[in-house]
Structure formats: C-alpha cells, structure tokens
C-alpha cells in the first residue's frame, strides 16, 4: 500500500506536484518577496562599488568605472593601518577572550553543587543580553576621570588615567569589556561538550588516584578538544569581520589611530562623508575576504570530519 503510493507520487508531473501544494506555496509568497526586495535588493546596490555614484546620479545613470574604487583603497597608505587595526583586535580577542571562555567552562564544570553551578552560569550569561550601547556606556562612565576606576586609583594614591582618550588603553578596554560581556555566554557550548564526556572515565581516573587537576588535563580537555578546534577555526575564519558597533561607540579622535577598522571607516567615509561608491567598494572588499576566510575555515572543519557550519 505504502509502496504503491510512493510510486504514484513519482509519476506526478512537476505541475501536478506544485498544484498539490498550492497552499504551501502561497504561504511562501510573502517571505520570498521579502528576501527578494530586502536582501537581493541590496545586492543590486552593490553595483555602485563599480560606478561613480554621486549626487544627482541614479543607480542606472551613474557611469561604470570598473575597479577604480578598489584600486584607490588598496593604494591608500591608510589601508594597511585599517587592516592592521582590524587584525590586531581580532587576534587579541582570540588570544585572551577565547581561552578565557574555555577556562570558565572547565571551572564551572568542576562545581559539584548543582545550585551553585546554575547560579554562576546564570550570572555569567547576563551581560550577553545587554545592548552594546549599555556596555559601552558603562565602560565610558566607569573609566571616566571621575568614574569608579579612577576613584579607586586616587584612593590608592595613584594618579588618574584618562583611559578613554589614551592610545595605549583602547585595545585592553575593548578586549576586557568583550570578556566581561561574552565570556559566560561563550562557555555554554563547552559546558555542554563537557557534560557529554563519559562519567566512567572520571570514575576510573579516581580509582587510579588521579587528582582533579590531572583529570582536567587528561580527560576534560582532550574530551572537548574537537569542539575547541572547531570554534577556534571558525573564529579564525571571522578574523576580518570585527563588529563595528562597539568601536563606533568607544573610539574618539585621540584613539582613532589604533581603533579605526575597515567597517568604521566605511561608516565614516562612505556614509557620513557620502562617498557611497567608495564606501561600498571597501565594504565589499571586506565581505569577500571574510567569506573566503570563512569558507576555508569551514572546509578545514569539514576535513576534520566534524560537524560543518551549515
């Protein structure tokens, strides 16, 4: 019965197959319209990267200039400055934020009191749900000359530091606030992986007299190593896509030399400076490099015979 039905199913023509599910297709109309207008519509506007789109011109009347804007971006000495800043911030996050996430997961995993574990987890996730504006607002005010940190410094008899306007402090502030906001949330995936490790391994280790420290080194860490390497690769793949929301809120004239990244440059020069074609070209350059990196990372992950990104 079931079998003959499925053979009948195969015999239907394409038209019949579509007609049979006409209600389902009608549901899809609005979403497809949405993706066509609001996503593919923006792809059409990407073409201005290859045109001179200036005031008074439309998408269609602006003349083609090929790779002119890309060339002028790549030849600009400031290009290397932007790439340098972008990569530096990403690498700093990879060096500090990434291991911290794993260490936190390992530490939380060592808490045997269920209620305590739950409490630490809940508290650590909280900042993830605050907006970038809130986190940056906290940073700016806690670090201001009359803020909490400087009050502490002067209480200890040290001189005040103008954190927000000093060149050397921008990167530490960026990284530390990132850790504060996202380390708890980032640890979820490792905590889940840790809970998947066979409990018998730990029991056997205890019988053999292994200390808890040894258990972490020889059971916990090797157990989550596949997850760690996948996460590492994916982060590496996203190394050029640094979020600009936060930088836009934290940087100012004095920290610009170390804080300006590709995307903030697009915002300032392309959008604020209405240099639309140039800004689009710079943005597209970043997107393409980012996609290549991401795709390569995903390929490597696939080769490692683990779950792929999508």
């Amino acid at each position: 019965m079931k079998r003959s039905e499925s053979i009948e199913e195969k015999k239907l023509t394409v038209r019949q197959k579509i007609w049979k599910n006409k209600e389902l297709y009608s549901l899809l109309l609005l979403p497809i319209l949405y993706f066509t207008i609001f996503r593919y519509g923006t792809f059409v506007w990407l073409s201005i990267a290859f045109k001179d789109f200036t005031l008074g011109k439309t998408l269609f009347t602006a003349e083609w200039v090929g790779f002119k804007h890309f060339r002028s971006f790549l030849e600009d000495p400031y290009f290397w400055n932007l790439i340098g800043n972008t990569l530096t911030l990403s690498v700093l996050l990879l060096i500090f934020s990434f291991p911290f996430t794993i260490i936190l997961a390992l530490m939380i995993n060592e808490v045997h009191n269920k209620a305590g574990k739950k409490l630490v987890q809940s508290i650590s996730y909280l900042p993830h749900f605050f907006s970038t504006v809130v986190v940056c607002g906290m940073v700016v005010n806690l670090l201001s000359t009359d803020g909490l940190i400087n009050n502490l410094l002067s209480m200890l008899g040290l001189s005040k530091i103008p954190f927000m306007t000093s060149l050397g402090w921008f990167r530490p502030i960026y990284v530390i606030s990132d850790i504060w906001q996202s380390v708890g949330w980032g640890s979820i995936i490792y905590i889940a992986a840790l809970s998947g490790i066979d409990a018998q391994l730990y029991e056997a280790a205890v019988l053999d007299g292994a200390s808890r420290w040894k258990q972490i080194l020889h059971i916990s860490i090797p157990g989550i190593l596949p997850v760690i390497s996948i996460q590492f690769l994916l982060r590496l793949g996203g190394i050029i896509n640094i979020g600009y929301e936060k930088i836009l809120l934290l940087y100012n004239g004095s920290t610009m030399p170390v804080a300006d990244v590709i995307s903030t440059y697009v915002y300032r020069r392309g959008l604020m400076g209405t240099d639309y074609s140039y800004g689009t070209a710079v943005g597209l350059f970043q997107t393409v490099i980012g996609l290549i990196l991401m795709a390569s990372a995903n390929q490597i992950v696939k080769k490692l015979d683990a779950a792929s990104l999508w």
Partner: protein
Amino acid sequence: MKMKFSDRLFGWINAFLLLLFTLIILYPIYYMFIVSISGSGPVMRAEVSIIPLEPTLDAYRVILGFNSFLRSYCNTIFYTVAGTLVNLFMTALCAYPLSRSDLYGRSAITVFIVIATVFDAGMIPGFMLVNSLHLRNTIWAILLPGAISGYNMILMRTFFQNIPVDLIEAARIDGASEKRIVAQIILPLSKPIFASLALMYAVGHWNSYLPPLLYLDDKKLYPLQLILRNVVISSELSELSGGMSAYSVNPLNIKYAVIFVSILPIICVYPFIQKYFEKGIMIGSLKG
C-alpha cells in the same frame, strides 16, 4: 568515597575564583544602581561604593520628566512588540512550507534563502535600498529590513521537521484541511520554538542600535538606544531636557539611572530568556 585534601583544596580555590568572577560581573551593574539612587553630594565626593548613600529617587524623577526619554522608551516598546510580531509571522510563514519534505523545489528555495542570509551586502547598500524605497524616517525602516533572520528560520524549520509525520498523516486521512492541520496540530505543538524565537527577536529589537542610527533622523522616532547613546556616551544631557541643562541632580546619577531603566526589562525577563536561549543555542549547534 572521601576526597583527598588536595582535591578539596582544589574545589575551594575553584569556588573562590568563580565567586570572584561573579562579583566582577555583578558589581558594575550594582554600582551603577547604587550611584543612581544616591544623593548628589556623596556621588561627587566619590564616596559611594557598597551601599547607596543619602538615598533618593531624584535622578529617576528627573528622567521621567524628560519627554524625549519617555517618548523613546515608548518607541522602543512599540518597535519591540510590533517588530517581534512581524518577525514571528514572517519566519513561521517561511519555515512551515520548507519543513515539508513533499514540497517541490524545496532545496532550491532553501539555497535562495541561505545565499541571502550568508552574503551580507553591507551597510551602504542597505542604506541605499531603504532610502530608495522611501522608508527612511518611517517605522517600516525598523520593522521590515530584518523581518526574517535566516538562522532563526532554519531553527524553526528544524523544529517543524521534528514533529512526527504520522500525526499529520493521520489528520489528513481523517480529512483535515491544510489550514486545520496547521492550526490544530502544528501551532499548538510549536509553542516552545515560538517562545524562544520571540525572546530572541525581542531582545534584538530592544537592544537594536545600528538600524535606527542609519535609518532614522527624526528624533520623534528615536528608540531608547539612540537616546541612551546621546546621554550616556556623548554626554548630551540637554538631549533629554530640550535645552535646559541646569538641574540639582548630578549628571552621573542621571546617566546611571538612564542605563538602569533601559536594562530593567531585560533583567526582569532574564530568567525566562535564559532558559529558552540555552535551548535555542543547543538546537542551533546540534543542527548547525
């Protein structure tokens, strides 16, 4: 079995470090709160650290008197509610047909959507599009461009796919129409995914800052996050009062009060969010 002393010591050190960590997470939030309810004097003299001094609600009274603050708060509530409804409606509309294995052309449509999701044209093309559709300075600029998140759509589709086919088949044999199957079987079973996506979308709208920054110039439409930025980061306190900037309350009190009022709803729904989000992230990572 009794633990060795060294292992117990390990546990204590671990617990102590985690306690320290939670304090580092919580203290800045707590500090902002106690400053916001302390008197101006102690705040100026930098005396507030553990408990509020000369407690007063003056800062809150001041910000509640600011029209632009109240208006932006109402705007954000509107964007959050309306935006989330649009999101859920559109996401479900997209996810349900794609969950059905008998849909002809399903993989082609999925590829169409995945390309649109993975490839982000960027800030300026997005701005130009919204501009060319004459959506700038309208609420639609906030509600429409992000109507469906491809990732969330995939999450919902996966959820629908996991509903046993037998249930749907049985209903069909009983003569139920497609509409009735959706209304009486799919939707009631899908409450958890709707709840978790609603929370995800809602938090996103509440915290959203870049789209309004790019698409709204009209201050009457400003959401909370933009006012927050002007007050807290750019220190434009006159932003709130419409020019008047001399009041008896310390600006720092006002700034922290504004921050606190803006995160209050997040803290209130947090217990629910957390549960659903954790589930959501797990569905996401399992399915990939």
